């Protein structure tokens, strides 16, 4: 049965201790680097020192993060904490999908990369119905046309566009 202190805690129990520990340790390590990573300028007012604001930020992180850790109602990690930490690592797969898409765009171009990425990720998410796969292709085309063709956002043309014939190459670089 949870104690009164645990019951009043805002948020789930799982993962809290691991996060709080990691936050305080990283903050303390960064604070320990303040001498080498910032400068103290002679004949400059204290509040105008380049070191002042990083010190405020990191000092606040260590102090308040440490107090948060101290006030946590738990002192030991349970197996649920480790399951939670494993869940955090699961999303790295989607971060890698995102980075693969980022790396693909300058090579094959925005439209082909999006046309490959959206249906592939939909397939990976377990969608096999024709409706979703067609929707993903339509969505990919609409996104590219709206953002690059209509709103002219700055996304460079793909390296493979260079092999296209003159007029088509210009059209692809500008709009797709």
């Amino acid at each position, binding site marked *: 049965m949870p104690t*009164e*202190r645990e019951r*009043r*805690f*805002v*948020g*789930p129990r799982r*993962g*809290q201790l691991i*996060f709080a520990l990691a*936050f305080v340790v990283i*903050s303390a390590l*960064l604070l320990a680097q303040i001498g080498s*990573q*910032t*400068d103290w*300028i002679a004949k*400059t*007012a204290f*509040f*105008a020192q*380049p070191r002042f*604001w*990083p010190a*405020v*930020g*990191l000092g*606040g*992180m260590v102090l*308040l993060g440490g*107090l*948060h850790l101290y*006030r946590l109602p738990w002192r030991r990690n349970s197996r649920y904490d480790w399951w*939670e930490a494993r*869940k*955090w690592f699961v*999303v*790295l797969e*989607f*971060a890698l999908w*995102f*980075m693969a*898409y*980022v790396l693909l*765009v300058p090579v094959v171009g925005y439209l082909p990369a999006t046309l490959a990425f*959206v249906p592939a990720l*939909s397939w990976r*998410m377990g*969608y096999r119905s024709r409706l979703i796969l067609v*929707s993903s292709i339509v*969505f*990919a085309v609409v*996104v590219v046309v709206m*953002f690059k063709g209509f*709103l*002219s*956002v*700055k*996304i*460079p043309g793909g390296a493979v566009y260079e092999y296209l014939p003159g007029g088509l190459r210009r059209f692809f670089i500008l709009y797709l």
Partner: protein
Amino acid sequence: MDLLLSSIDILSRWDVVLALLVGSVGGVLIGAIPGVGPAVAIAILLPATFSMDPIVGLTVLLGIYGSSMYGGAIPAILINTPGTAVNALTTYDGFPMTTRGEPRRALSLAYSSSFFGGVFSVICLILFAPILARVAPMFGSREIFLAALLGIVLVVVAHRGQSLIAGALAAFGIFLQSIGMEPVKYTQRYTFDQPFLQGGINLIVVVLGLFALSQAFVLLTSVDEKVRLTRLRGGLFQGMRELLRHPRVATVSASFGVLMGMIPGVGEFTAQFMSYTYAQRSSKRPQDFGRGSSEGLIAAETSNNAVPAAAMVPLLALGIPGEALTAMMLSVFYVHNVVPGPGLFQNDMDFVVALYLALLILNVLVLVFLLFATGTLIKVVKIPNRFLGVCVLTLSFVGVYSLRNSISDCVMAAAFGVLGYILKRLSMPVVPIILGMVLGGIMEVKLRAGMARVKGPLDLIDRPVAFILFCIIIVVIAAHLRRVWLERRDLKETEWQNKRRSTSFATRLSRRRNSLLKERGKMVRARRSNRFPQSTDLY
């Protein structure tokens, strides 16, 4: 009158009209899809608005901000899932109305209340603008520094029960903004000799990571839910008539929305909580609240829609954003070299009034759109969660990559996305990081400028406005510490009341030890260690 005419002149351009339409319809759609929300949409669209005129870009973003709450009421009422976080209170009374067969009545009342809240706040602020124009010039560097500090303090104390971690995350935001080349002495801060860190960490990269990418990760790791929609019957115009029967609740709730919206770091949740509590206490049927009370629905929807216009006040008058969405809008001003603050009110008052008029028109457009398109619009709630995650991930790419075509920006955004996902899993607030970044930057510049003109730290508060702000900061911190102390005392009392005999277990162990030390105990232990060695290995 001239001011009004010149403001209308700013708005009467085809691109502004188009921005109004796109913002209002887009905002309703985004609000109606649970799991997306205005913060994600604004974060994605932000870089696209940089190439537009400031009024056009801001109108699109304001349109999404102002109209998303209208759309958010639809899933809140029909499927008990708030479309945006601020529609959570709408589910209390909206969904019970649906279950008893009155979804049209609930939707109509929500639209009418939202419309009243939105229009009330815009009218209040247009009337209030001349006073603001007079007060804003009283804010110099020191006052803006103290107002930004007050904003951070309020954001931290507003997270009840989480103020320590909210403070730590705000400090993390302050640290993030300090990374890179320092602009006055040209020294490096926490760049670790990495070229990609020398330009600093871009606010939009952090915003896209913490809001858009993290939400995509949340959706991609969630499960698709089967949504069953109730068929809508009856007219959508009855809500206005019902709203007119509760003018007191509507007016007080809208006033709470305006007041809370103007205070940095407070926003919709506090306004809703206060309005709902007031409506319940002053109602003749308080027992109906949470079971489909029309007054409860009016209080929740009126107060949250009165906030967006009011939230623009600290941004426009002082250049201080009070929440994440206005912090994102600040970057649109900076990109176009428009400096929000006292100067804007003195020199470009027509621009400010044009923004308010745009919000007014937007409310009318949204109401008309919803009255005729609700039947079709409710189908968007059927989009599967994980497919929505794929869409948000694809759109996030446009936001991050189009900024500087930088792969390191994308890596950073992905890293912040993972951090945002962890924070969401742990129910920790993300907003303090963004406000720490924005307000930390403002505080650094303004403190340096303010301290250059004074001899000692105490001279910082020798002007009336600065002194008042300083006193408010002290009062807020003191009130928070008192509340923490009272909560701690209450916890101790409850623990003491619930405590069983704490000595019982210790007494048992002590008796066991005494027994084992006696002659007979030693004999029994020796016999047991032969037969059942595991039972005695423990002692």
